[in-house]
């Protein structure tokens, strides 16, 4: 039980998908012009994350290793279709506000990343708690970002007016530029307090990666190991 809780907790803060691992940036930036949209997007993503985690961990011994990525993507796309049709039928205004970003959950790196790095190696219960934690962390990050942008850009939160008429809305916060700048400053703010264990000063390409047994594995390293292990690439033919 404590193990399950540990898996749940790490997604909330230590390995937060948005602020620490920088995964799934497209929806994070695109739909956070209000806290409501952020919440809806977060819930839709969490649903897909949870359902695909259950499926992938159930089928992890059946899916052949070579075609696993393709199989995961088909599973994910199926659940995204369900989420999209559900939103369109039950909550048309939200479905309209999110637009093409709901189908784009298919290519959210967070979901495929968790399927490959976690669910394909762990049992159902562990995978569920991991997915719940990651989903909650992702939703929380979207609400924080959406909340800040809505308060500054519109003077309201969850469409309830917070600031009076004296407040001149910062329109720039609702525009694309405001999204980038807010997230950049937020990440800087969090780094200032946590000092994450990534060697500071390295270029961003090496920041992208995941933690394994307490060690930060950069994406390029992981890919290199995978390539060496799985297929000795024959690029130069020996005579």
């Amino acid at each position: 039980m404590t193990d399950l809780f540990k898996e749940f907790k790490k997604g909330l803060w230590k390995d937060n998908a948005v602020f620490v691992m920088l995964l799934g940036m497209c929806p994070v930036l695109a739909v956070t012009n209000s806290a409501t949209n952020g919440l809806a997007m977060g819930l839709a993503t969490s649903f897909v994350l949870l359902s695909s985690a259950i499926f992938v961990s159930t089928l992890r011994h059946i899916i052949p290793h070579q075609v696993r990525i393709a199989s995961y993507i088909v599973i994910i796309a199926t659940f995204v279709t369900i989420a999209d049709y559900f939103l369109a039928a039950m909550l048309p205004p939200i479905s309209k506000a999110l637009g093409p970003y709901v189908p784009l959950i298919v290519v959210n790196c967070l979901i495929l990343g968790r399927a490959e790095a976690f669910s394909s190696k762990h049992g159902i219960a562990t995978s569920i708690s991991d997915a719940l934690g990651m989903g909650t962390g992702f939703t929380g990050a979207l609400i924080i970002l959406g909340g800040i942008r809505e308060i500054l850009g519109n003077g309201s939160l969850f469409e309830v007016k917070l600031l009076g008429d004296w407040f001149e809305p910062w329109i720039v916060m609702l525009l694309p530029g405001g999204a980038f700048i807010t997230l950049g400053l937020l990440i800087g703010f969090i780094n200032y307090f946590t000092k994450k264990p990534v060697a500071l000063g390295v270029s961003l390409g090496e920041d992208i990666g995941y933690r394994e047994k307490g060690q930060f594995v950069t994406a390029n390293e992981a890919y290199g190991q995978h390539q060496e292990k799985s297929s000795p690439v024959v690029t130069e033919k020996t005579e």
Partner: protein
Amino acid sequence: MEIFIIFISASIVNNFVLTYFLGICPFLGVSNKIDSSFSLGLATTFVMVITAVASWLINHYILILFNVPFLEYVSFIIVIASMVQLVEMFVKKTSPVLYRALGIFLPLITTNCAILGLALFAVLRDYSFIQTIVFGIGAGVGFTLAIVVMAGIREELEMADIPYPLKGAGITLIVAGFLALAFMGFAGLISA
């Protein structure tokens, strides 16, 4: 004329990266060096054009013909994944150096939202076959433009004295924010 407008709109006015936030992962991840970002831009453009053609054909000759619109996402993503596989094999054979330089980001084009976004937008806006191809080229050129500009700025930033919490991701996002604001200058160029 209409085709020209689609091209300018997709590449500059409604730039995929800076207005629609599509393709942010490679935009932040591979924009260290101008050379590698330019090659990634070319690879992405190539995949985009092929995907645009394939998704148009699938949409018109399978999904609409057999009335199975709910298979849209599944079929598009499968086409994209196989196209990326094709490009990867091609690059591996022709240019091992480029293959190593692109590293993980070549297979990751599959999960590049810009590609699927392109296919979805083309269906949503009901483009004709020619329009879809032009839209694909325009979006690819826009992506390449944005990522190369970003790489140019970041090569200069390498020497700058940035406050440590903002190093890496933070400053890159802030620079992208200013770039997006700069691109807004084009907003009045084309109406609708």
